[in-house]
């Protein structure tokens, strides 16, 4: 399976890029030339330097500096960390919550299943940005708040996927066998149904993490997401907005490229996973 994945050169390249991005995000404090949020390391005289400029202290700003003299390369490393944390954390929580609800609904059937799917249908009838906006308006700013909002936005996708996968599984013989062995409902759902519903959930998951990262960046750009103390890529782009009109493109453009690289590589990996898990496509 891994070999098959790597046979597609685009997917392999995307996976390599994604791995690099994750490593950079994980080790940002050690890789970044500067701690962009330690005010003692910032020099206002170095503000708005173009990419490649060198400071008086012979420090080279490869991607230039922002309005406060912050090294953009370091800011992007730290920003990636925040963006990925929010995207992955909300994705995992939503996967667990939505996946479990979906599988339980399929197993229980009847009223409970109908009710849950009705709620899912209603929510999916509204665009994610609108739901997220309502929630952020209600919850306020903060990393925890935005993760809650993103989980609320995403769980329905997972619930729908898990349910449709589990509905197919619930009538199979191995489930009947488990039932006749007298296993508890909980055990059947967790040990038998859930693992078999996992492949489609993983595919939805990759796409959803990319969505979550984009959505968080959008909300932060609008000033509704993360507080300025924890700048994600979206907030970095927003900060560069005012300088863009005067031709200082680098403050907004480079964080945007980092965001694009992240979302693109996740989407490409997700595309390949979807094709591999899809039995209808001849390979």
């Amino acid at each position: 399976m891994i070999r098959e994945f790597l046979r597609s050169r685009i997917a392999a390249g995307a996976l390599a890029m994604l791995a690099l991005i994750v490593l950079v995000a994980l080790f940002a404090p050690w890789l970044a030339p500067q701690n962009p949020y330690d005010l003692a390391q910032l020099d206002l005289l170095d503000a708005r330097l173009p990419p490649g400029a060198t400071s008086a202290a012979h420090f080279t700003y490869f991607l230039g500096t922002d309005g406060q003299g912050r090294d953009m390369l370091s800011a992007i490393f730290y920003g990636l960390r925040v963006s990925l944390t929010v995207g992955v954390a909300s994705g995992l929580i939503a996967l667990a919550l939505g996946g479990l609800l979906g599988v339980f609904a399929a197993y229980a059937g009847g009223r409970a299943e109908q009710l849950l799917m009705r709620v899912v249908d209603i929510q999916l009838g509204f665009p994610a940005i609108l739901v997220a906006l309502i929630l952020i308006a209600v919850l306020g700013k903060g990393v925890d708040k935005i993760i809650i909002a993103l989980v609320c936005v995403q769980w329905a996708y997972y619930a729908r996927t898990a349910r449709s996968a589990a509905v197919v599984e619930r009538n199979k013989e191995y489930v009947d066998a488990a039932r006749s062995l007298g296993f508890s409902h909980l055990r059947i759902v967790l040990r038998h149904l859930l693992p078999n519903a996992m492949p489609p959930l993983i595919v939805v998951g990759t796409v959803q993490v990319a969505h979550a990262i984009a959505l968080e960046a959008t909300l932060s750009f609008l000033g509704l997401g993360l507080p300025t103390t924890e700048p994600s890529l979206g907030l970095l782009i927003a900060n560069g907005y005012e300088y863009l009109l005067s031709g200082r493109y680098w403050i907004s453009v480079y964080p945007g490229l980092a965001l694009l690289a992240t979302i693109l590589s996740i989407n490409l990996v997700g595309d390949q996973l979807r094709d591999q898990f899809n039995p209808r496509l001849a390979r």
Partner: protein
Amino acid sequence: MPAFILRRLAQTLLVLLVTSALVFGGLYLVGNPVEILVNPAADEIEKARAAAALGLDRPVLEQYWIFLKGAASGDLGRSFVFGRPALEVILERMPATLELAFLAMVMSVGIGIPLGLYAGLYPDRFSSKAIMAGSILGFSLPTFWVGLLLIMLFAVQLGWLPSTGRGPTEEVLGIQISILNIAGLRYALLPSLNLALFKLSLIIRLTRAQVREQVLLDYIRFARAKGLPRARVIGVHLLKNIMIPLVTVIGLELGSVIAFAIVTESIFAWPGMGKLVIDSMFQLDRPVVVAYLLVVVLMFTLINLAVDILYAALDPRVRLDGSRA
């Protein structure tokens, strides 16, 4: 069918009620609008007077009850900031948002379907692969960032188009519309292109997938075997059949374009209702935020309903029995 529509409307009412309660309660907890509205130098007595004038001195449940009573008769409260009925403020901004959404949809359908058709008919050509690669890129590009790049390129560097704001408007049937004259269209071009990009990618991919599925079916082979000209097979037989799923998606995407206009309007300072709601959120102008969300949720449900009915009309195999909502 009538039972289906009735059930749908009842469901809409429930969603509206939940949304209003959630937002009303949430914004009540977030902060006190009086602190923002009143002159910072104002003393406690002045603040209390302002709160009383806005009805903010009462318990939140009572405020919500008053709001619900008003809402039942079409009155969604007065904006704290504008001092006018919130619904009026929103409806005033609605044409600007709708014309942007309309233009974006025209662009994405007008460009997306031909490109998707081409990529689906000739999947192995290099140009088709380039189109598909472009659509993946369009999918992954964060909309707001693309908006900034568009401003940078076309407004700052090249100076071809205005960067922000809305152009001169013309009055049509009492509504101010800006895209009917060239000057106004120039202003609308960048924001609607920005808004269209994501939908364009979606429509390209969808059209291509549909075409590739349909060209293998017997009816196409039969039409060809009959000796019909290729243009007629593609333009009539094929196009008709790929339209069914496309209409559904296009209908649903119209709603999401209206919601996503929030972002585009904020970037391009386009005076539509999306920008209004973002500004109102920062000013804790609760009546406007609640009214906006209710209006948009209502628009959404109506669009979804229309799409479902249209779907049943286009495809006789679909029955509306109310079991699926």
